[in-house]
């Protein structure tokens, strides 16, 4: 019996130990060391266990491992089992989650060391890892869904980690609510699947959809419903609005949850249920177009943002769009490949941003940075490597995955089209541009720091820079491990349209050229004193305001959904429903009793004679009645 459950349970133990013991029993130093040991040790243990499981998998000739923990419920003879499943895809995901997760835990030790809620932080982070592993390892959609909701909870807790700031608490709530909207679609998809197939085990679902004749349900319907869930979790149009606000959490959280792992859950789900999407041409087209449009619009927004973490957040949304584009044209392995490289370079970028923020004592506005390269060299070097990786410069990891995405967007026979390719290529250009813009404004050029901040600039401790170096090496070299090739037996790549087959080499050349063009554009605009950028800014005021305002989508949603909802809550539910109907009924009944009592009370005069008279009248009345009816 392979020990898959232990992988997920190790971080849970960390959560319980830190959450229950450390936050109460010990204060200060000794507790600090205990929290660090438990908080980092158990994720690393989970990583080791994952490696062992991977070795078992390889030793068994890549036959999927599975472990049934127990039967959760049985309805009408159909058991819902809590069981784990470990195949090539799970292996890749679990290694990313535990590997990058462990690195970020280690980084957090330095980043959060002065926070008064240190134990709570590690408890939440371990809780997140537990749910994420449940999501990745679950064999049944039900287990996946528990993880899916659990990571949402952990994300909410960590976005609102500094909950005494109302704005940050509100960002947490926003993430939670927006995700629930997506989850409604996901649940409906699960209901449809269960109603038709009678099982929620994902390997069985795939098998049922791949068999002929297929199941009696439209794959497109199921695909779209599940994808609605993915748009929530993975921040795609129209539900992407929560992710940029999620940057209110501590920066390592942004790196782990809102860049490297949790937000990729939607991509993982689509890849895991590829059996459905292969048969759902309409749903796949939708996935591809939503993906490419999200990538494009998020990239345009990222160009005009001033908050270092906001730029990275929109860049994450954009890169997730690339992953969905790949999944939409049938190249699931490539989507996972980009997920894998993205986890490295985006984690590196976020942690680098964290190091910059750390160095500047909390400053996040890139207009007040500049010239930091010499002051914090390790951070600069790693950030530059990751930037080049995301921009797609060879031979860094982003180059390989993005190139494959562009290629399949163009040539896949499952919906690849020149239009998808054109938008994706334009987005790739913008990606390179805004990332190098960020690099320039933060690290190069003249220093725009105020004197107070400038005096305190310092490189981060080795526990942080060490992690940055490891991640930079991974973002540089990670592309040489060809994930699509590893996954091919499980997730075959789509065929190529014959007349476009000659396009591969030009596309490789083009994608390198786009990366370099972005670099050149950023250099040209922001190099030197940045007067060219200022002049452009003066000429395109309207466009800049539109992009800075993020197309005013938040305001639009507020008008379209937020305010009507508040109005309905206030006028219909509160005033009419609650106050008029429910309170009104109760008050009315009480009032009726009170008025009746007042009326009847008048009879109680206290005068004995009146009572005697009433008795007499009653007696006479009774007699008269019995006389009449006798």
């Amino acid at each position, binding site marked *: 019996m392979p020990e898959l459950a232990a992988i997920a349970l190790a971080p849970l133990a960390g959560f319980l130990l830190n959450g229950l013991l450390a936050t109460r029993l010990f204060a200060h130093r000794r507790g600090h060391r205990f929290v660090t040991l438990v908080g980092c040790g158990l994720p690393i243990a989970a990583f080791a266990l994952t490696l062992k499981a991977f070795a078992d998998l390889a030793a068994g000739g890549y036959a999927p491992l599975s472990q049934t923990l127990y039967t959760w419920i049985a309805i009408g003879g159909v058991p819902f089992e809590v069981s784990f499943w470990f195949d090539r895809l799970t292996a890749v995901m679990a290694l990313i989650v535990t590997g990058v997760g462990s690195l970020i835990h280690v980084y957090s030790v330095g980043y959060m060391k002065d926070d008064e809620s240190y134990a709570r932080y590690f408890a939440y982070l371990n809780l997140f890892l537990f749910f994420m592993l449940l999501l990745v390892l679950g064999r049944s959609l039900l287990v996946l869904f528990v993880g899916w909701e659990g990571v949402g909870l952990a994300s909410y807790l960590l976005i609102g980690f500094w909950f005494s700031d109302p704005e940050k608490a509100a960002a947490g709530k926003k993430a939670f609510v927006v995700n629930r909207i997506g989850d409604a679609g996901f649940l409906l998809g699960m209901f449809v699947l269960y109603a038709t197939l009678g099982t929620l085990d994902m390997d069985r679902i795939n098998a049922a959809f791949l068999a002929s004749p297929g199941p009696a349900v439209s794959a497109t319907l199921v695909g779209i419903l599940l994808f609605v869930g993915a748009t929530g979790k993975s921040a795609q149009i129209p539900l992407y609005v929560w992710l940029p606000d999620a940057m209110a959490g501590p920066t390592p959280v942004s790196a782990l949850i809102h860049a490297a792992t949790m937000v990729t859950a939607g991509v993982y789900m689509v890849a895991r249920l590829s059996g459905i999407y292969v048969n759902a041409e309409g749903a796949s087209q939708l996935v591809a177009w939503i993906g490419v449009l999200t990538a494009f619009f998020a990239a345009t927004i990222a160009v005009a943002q001033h908050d270092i973490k906001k730029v990275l957040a929109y860049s994450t949304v954009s890169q997730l769009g690339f992953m969905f584009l790949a999944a939409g044209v049938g190249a699931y392995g490539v989507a996972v490949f980009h997920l894998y490289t993205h986890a490295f370079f985006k984690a590196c970028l976020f942690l680098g941003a964290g190091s910059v923020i750390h160095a500047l004592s909390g400053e996040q506005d890139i207009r007040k940075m500049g010239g930091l390269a010499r002051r914090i060299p390790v951070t600069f070097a790693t950030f530059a490597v990751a930037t080049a990786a995301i921009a797609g410069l060879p031979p860094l990891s982003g180059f390989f995955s993005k190139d494959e995405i562009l290629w399949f967007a163009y040539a896949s026979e499952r919906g690849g089209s020149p239009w998808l390719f054109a938008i994706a290529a334009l987005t790739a250009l913008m990606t390179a541009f805004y990332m190098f813009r960020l690099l320039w404004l933060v690290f190069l050029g003249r220093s725009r720091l105020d004197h107070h901040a400038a005096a305190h600039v310092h490189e981060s401790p080795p526990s942080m820079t060490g992690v940055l170096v490891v991640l930079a090496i991974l973002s540089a070299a990670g592309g040489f491990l060809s994930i699509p090739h590893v996954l091919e037996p499980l997730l075959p790549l789509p065929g190529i349209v014959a007349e476009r087959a000659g396009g591969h080499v030009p596309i490789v050349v083009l994608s390198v050229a786009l990366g370099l063009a972005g670099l050149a554009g950023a250099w040209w605009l922001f190099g030197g004193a940045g007067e060219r950028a200022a002049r452009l800014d003066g000429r395109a005021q309207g466009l800049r305001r539109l992009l800075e305002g993020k197309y005013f989508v938040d305001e639009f949603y507020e008008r379209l959904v937020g305010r009507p909802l508040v109005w309905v809550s206030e006028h219909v539910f509160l005033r009419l429903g609650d106050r008029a109907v429910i309170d009104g009924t109760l008050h009315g009944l009480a009032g009726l009793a009170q008025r009746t009592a007042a009326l*009847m*009370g*008048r*009879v*109680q*005069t*206290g*005068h*004995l*004679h009146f009572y*005697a*008279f009433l008795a*007499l009248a009653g007696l006479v009345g009774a007699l008269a009645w019995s006389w009449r009816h006798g």
Partner: protein
Amino acid sequence: MDKTQALLVLALALFSLGLAGVVVRRNLLVMLMSMELMLNGVNLSLVTFANQMGAAEGAVLVFLIFVVAAAEIAIAIPIVLLLARRRHTLDADAYADLKG
């Protein structure tokens, strides 16, 4: 009109007088006396009926009523006494404290 009828009319008259007394008079002692009158009217009717039927049960019930009436008066008179001591009046209308 035979003897039974006459006795019943007398019983009715006693009861009605008592009832009228309870309703009309304001003196608590007079009201108690009127109640005794009502009881005696009932007693008389019971005895009359018992005589007519030639059965003893009615007469037995009369004794029960005597006992109850005695007990009632034994409680009522002290209550009236206490009330009178408090307010120095026997007027029933002075004791309207239980007004609703």
